[in-house]
């Protein structure tokens, strides 16, 4: 701080006023009011000022750089949200597990198409086809022999919530093939195993009830 800043300038002002009060009072008496500002100057200054303000608004679209950045961030955020929800929209694609692979994961719909022999399925699906074909044979023409046919399976139905978890899990049937034909019966051990297995998995959310056949 400069030395002069330490001075009490209010006192200096008052002292100056006192010392020259006579001059001030005489000046106040004789000084006339200045003329008013000419109107054409008022108009000119207002015109320039308003134009400048308009330019400022145009330059600072949406009130400046800060809001522009915020707007850009909001747009990117909205795009991100749309993308995420777009990916999570239910589709007609086959149900796919997100977690560790289950022994057999497919849908009844696929299985039906597979029975017609029109689709090429993966290895897991091949097993499933065998089950379906075997069951059809069992129900119509008695026992069937196939080295690929599994010895047992559990068929479950469930729905998938928004987080991809299975809920309302219902065991439809649990079957075994002791030697010839199939024997489906109640079995708490299979039921519990199927429930535990399905609960550990994550699926694509869908509004439709899903069915899976699990091979223990």
């Amino acid at each position, binding site marked *: 701080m400069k030395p002069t800043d330490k001075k009490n300038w209010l006192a*200096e002002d008052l002292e100056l006023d006192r010392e020259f009060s006579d001059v001030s009072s005489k000046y106040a008496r004789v000084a006339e009011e*200045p003329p008013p500002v000419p109107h054409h100057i008022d108009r000119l200054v207002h015109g320039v000022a308003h134009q400048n303000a308009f330019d400022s608004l145009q330059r600072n679209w949406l009130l400046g750089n800060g809001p522009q950045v915020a707007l850009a961030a909001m747009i990117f955020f909205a795009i991100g949200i749309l993308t995420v929800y777009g990916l999570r929209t239910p589709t007609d694609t086959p149900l796919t597990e997100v977690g560790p692979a289950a022994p057999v994961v497919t849908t009844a719909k696929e299985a039906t198409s597979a029975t017609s022999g029109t689709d090429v399925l993966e290895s897991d699906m091949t097993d499933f086809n065998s089950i379906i074909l075997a069951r059809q044979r069992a129900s119509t023409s008695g026992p069937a022999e196939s080295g690929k046919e599994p010895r047992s399976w559990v068929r479950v139905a469930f729905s998938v919530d928004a987080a991809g978890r299975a809920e309302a899990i219902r065991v439809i049937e649990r079957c075994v093939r002791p030697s010839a034909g199939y024997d489906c019966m109640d079995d708490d051990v299979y039921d519990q195993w199927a429930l535990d297995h399905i609960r550990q998995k994550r699926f694509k959310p869908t509004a439709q009830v899903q069915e899976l056949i699990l091979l223990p």
Partner: protein
Amino acid sequence: MALAVTDSSDVLAGTVEPADDQLIAAYARGDHGAFDELYTRYRQPLYGYLFRHCGDAEQAGELFQDVWLRVIASSRRFERQGRFRSWLFTLAHNRLVDHYRQTERRPGTVAEQETGDDDTVPADRTYDSGQAADALQAALTCLPLEQRQAFFLREEQGFSIRDIAEIQGIDPEAAKSRLRYAYSKLRDALQEHQL
């Protein structure tokens, strides 16, 4: 004389002048209504100040217009909190200095040159035709520009010593000295005419 504001009372400066700052900031963001308010506040004081110096309405109007155009152009760069009024008169001070530098004429000599008679007070001068007015006018005419400015800033606009120092870009002691010289010379002129 109404002694203001900024130097002598920080409280007043804090309560009155921030509104000017808000207005100039709003104008810088594109609010032309804020400028209208500022202009209404200061148009007549500024014009009066310039007119006192020039003694000529047309010339004062030209300078007045220039000062406001500078305000408009510099509004986004204004950063002196609570000091818009001082800033405005600083711009006016600088414009006056430029003006007299360009014309190479001392303030107050315009009327003399136009009339060709030092003893005659022109019709558009700001003082009445009485002796006191004549004496004061003559004395003011003879003052150096800086002292004359300091006198008008104090008597007409109520600026404090520190405000005047800020406007003129000098030390407060120098501003006080200018004021004392100006007042003393005016007093001498009045006493000389036994007024």
